[in-house]
């Protein structure tokens, strides 16, 4: 088994009476791009701050690159790069100065070809003062500084917030390049498409607890595909095990099917005289909504 770049076990953390983390376990293998998915306030940033040694967990264990994030923070920080979701910088410095500051304090070489290349790719003007930057441009400063550093592990906390789609595409390419080079990336996000596009594994967090975790295909296996077809004899399928939300309209049927039952349902479809057929793989969004949909319903009923 590959070594683990990040491993946490049953982390808890409370702020006063608010329980931010409630037994969070997270495993990221070295060389993987891991998605960390959850809505606002689920505890993603709290987890990352614990991994950075800025917060001390109330209980549970955490290891980053085999070290303890609290007592070996500095040693860990020499080997990682971090991008926060809401980057606030020194308004009087220029973007270029901040990038150099961040790279040099990490121990990297400020005037590298890589820095120039990234500035060009992200279309960032390094001579402007930070106070004149928009949110997206401040985010680019943090991204350039992080990506220009030769880190083993990248902790990216909603890194694309404020970026336009073109820049998001650049970011996607950069993360793919990192994976090719064997770097480890933890990408926290609430943008499902981004995670789906980039990540090898996904951990879904809800109310401070990991509720689902695995490779994308493993997770998809747990959920349903959407089938649309024209059938001569729809009734055969409607009551089959694993079929949900069955609707018929002018001989076109549409239903969801548990991925575990998809083989048997396909056989039934053949029997039912299928004329044309599409099977859409489940999106992460559906997976996500299934987990959070419960919460929405619970909230409604408790009111």
């Amino acid at each position, binding site marked *: 088994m590959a070594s683990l770049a990040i491993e946490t076990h049953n982390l808890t953390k409370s*702020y006063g009476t608010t329980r931010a983390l409630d037994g969070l376990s997270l495993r990221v293998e070295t060389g993987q791009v891991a998605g960390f998915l959850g809505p606002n306030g689920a505890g993603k940033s709290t987890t990352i701050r614990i991994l950075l040694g800025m917060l001390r967990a109330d209980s549970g264990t955490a290891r980053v690159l085999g070290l303890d994030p609290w007592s070996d923070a500095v040693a860990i920080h020499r080997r990682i790069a971090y991008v*926060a979701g809401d980057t606030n910088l020194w308004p009087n410095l220029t973007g270029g100065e901040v990038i150099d500051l961040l790279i040099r304090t990490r121990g990297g070489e400020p005037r590298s070809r890589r820095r120039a290349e990234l500035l060009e790719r992200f279309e960032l003007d390094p001579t402007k003062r930070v106070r004149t930057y928009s949110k997206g441009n401040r985010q680019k400063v943090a991204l350039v500084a992080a990506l220009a550093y030769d880190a083993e592990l990248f*902790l990216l906390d909603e890194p694309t917030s404020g970026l336009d789609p073109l820049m998001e595409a650049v970011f996607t390419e950069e993360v793919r390049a990192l994976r090719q080079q064997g770097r480890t990336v933890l990408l926290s996000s609430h943008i499902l498409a981004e995670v789906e596009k980039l990540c090898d594994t996904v951990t879904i967090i809800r109310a401070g607890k990991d509720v689902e975790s695995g490779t994308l295909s493993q997770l998809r296996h747990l959920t349903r595909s959407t089938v649309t077809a024209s059938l001569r004899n729809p009734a055969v399928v409607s009551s089959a095990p694993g079929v949900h939300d069955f609707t018929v309209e002018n001989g076109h049927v549409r239903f969801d099917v548990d991925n575990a039952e998809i083989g048997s349902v396909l056989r039934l479809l053949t029997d039912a005289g299928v004329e044309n057929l599409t099977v859409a793989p489940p999106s992460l969004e559906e997976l996500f909504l299934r987990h959070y949909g419960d919460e929405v319903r619970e909230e409604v009923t408790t009111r």
Partner: protein
Amino acid sequence: MTATTMARAERRAPSRPGSAEPWAGTLDLLRLYLRLDRIRILVWTVSIGLLVAGSVASMKQIYTTPESLQARAALMANPSAVMMTGPAFGLDNYTFGAMVANELSLYLLLATAIMSILLVVRHTRADEEAGRLEILRALPVGRFAPATAAALTVMLANLLVGAALALGLVGTEMETASSLAMGAGAAVTGLVFGAVAVVTAQLTEHSRAATGMALATLGAAFGVRAVGDVIDNQGSWLSWFSPLAWAQQTRLYVDLRWWPLALSLITVVVLLVVAVALSQRRDLGAGLRKGKPGPAEATGSLLSPAGLARRLLNGAFLGWMLGTFVLAVACGSMANSLEDAMMEIPTLGEWIAMDLDDLTSSFGASMLSFLAIAMVAFAVSAVLRLRTEEEAGRVEALLVTGSSRVGLLSGWLGCVALQTLVMAVVTGFGLGLGMWAATGDVVWVGRITASALAYLPATYFIAAVAVALYGLLPRWATVSWVLVIWVAFVLFLGTLLDLPSWAMDLSPMAHTPLVPSVDVEATPLLTMSGLAVLLGFVGFLTYRRRDIVPG
């Protein structure tokens, strides 16, 4: 080895697992902080150095004879003079040096204290609140490195200011040892209040509150030594509870002793230890005092520009009002020492030709003029808060909800005007209460409270300058503080430095009659009120036409 090579060497050192390296990266951060502060520190250093050299040089021109010095010494018998300057040493044989030390040193101590508080909060709580500290801490930077680098920055700033101060004194041919002691005293007093700010930065989540608490501590230290020095004009037991007194107790140019400065250094160490202990008990970004959840819905009173202003300014307003009230009561309660002063120096009565009632009245008037500085400072800061709101982009958010610009500005300024009025009444009432307690004559309560209102036109005028600047040149609105500083400068040092009358007249406060010791003159008050309205009008007109500029 230079700082750069040391930093490099430090980075190359292999990381040893298990060693927390709490100070790793301190030099890098120090370099960053100095880069960010180089102009600030330079301005403080140069202006304090020049101020001291200039003041001493001009005083040398004024006080040329022993008689003129002795006349100045006689003034120090007046409790209000002692209160606003400090302990008076060497009065019997008043030397030029003794006068400089007695009358100038307090303001230099206040200057370094304020500088240190602002610098410390800027690099501790303000960075933490804005999330910049998080970005730094994610670098290979030890847990204590940011705070240590901030402390080193403040130390360096105080060292430079102290050196400039000593240089200014030596350069004007003052005695070397005492000049060095005055520089050292200003520097260590700056450090004490810097350390106070390090502690307050641990207590609250907000940089504004951290600054406010540290400045309130400075105000308390001022009050304690003021009262303590009036009890005994060479410093009583009470004076010794104030860090400001320690540097003053070095008896500069009279009978120099260094050991009181040790108290300052010990206090710095104790405060830093407390701060480290406190910081261990909190999370990054959090304060020790946990923020409580607030109401989920806005009350009706919040939903207007004036209501919002009231809510946003309330904390500062209550702080300023309470602080000024306490200081006013303390100052007023010193009125009974006037009688002692009259007894002690029987010639005083002949010399200034006034009876005790006149003396008390003039005491009240001069106290009131000092306390009015607080009103001015509050009013200007409250007006300029609107600029902060604009910079943060929050004014935009209000304007797009349908508040008109005129509505927003008039609501805000109406609130500021009303709060300033309340502050004037409370200040006068507090001073009157103190004087009642001291003299047993209740008439002072009403008389002083009414007199305090005479300072409103000047205060509104100065606030209106800030309003006009805010409308005309929003990026330069903070320059209004220059006027506030000038007002204070004229009030505290104007007569000592024998400033030319045109320079004194630049201070709007100089046109306020010294009520209740002189009669009210309507003309200057009405003129200033008229000018305030005019400037306010300029502010409104320009604010309506200009761009809203965040950042």
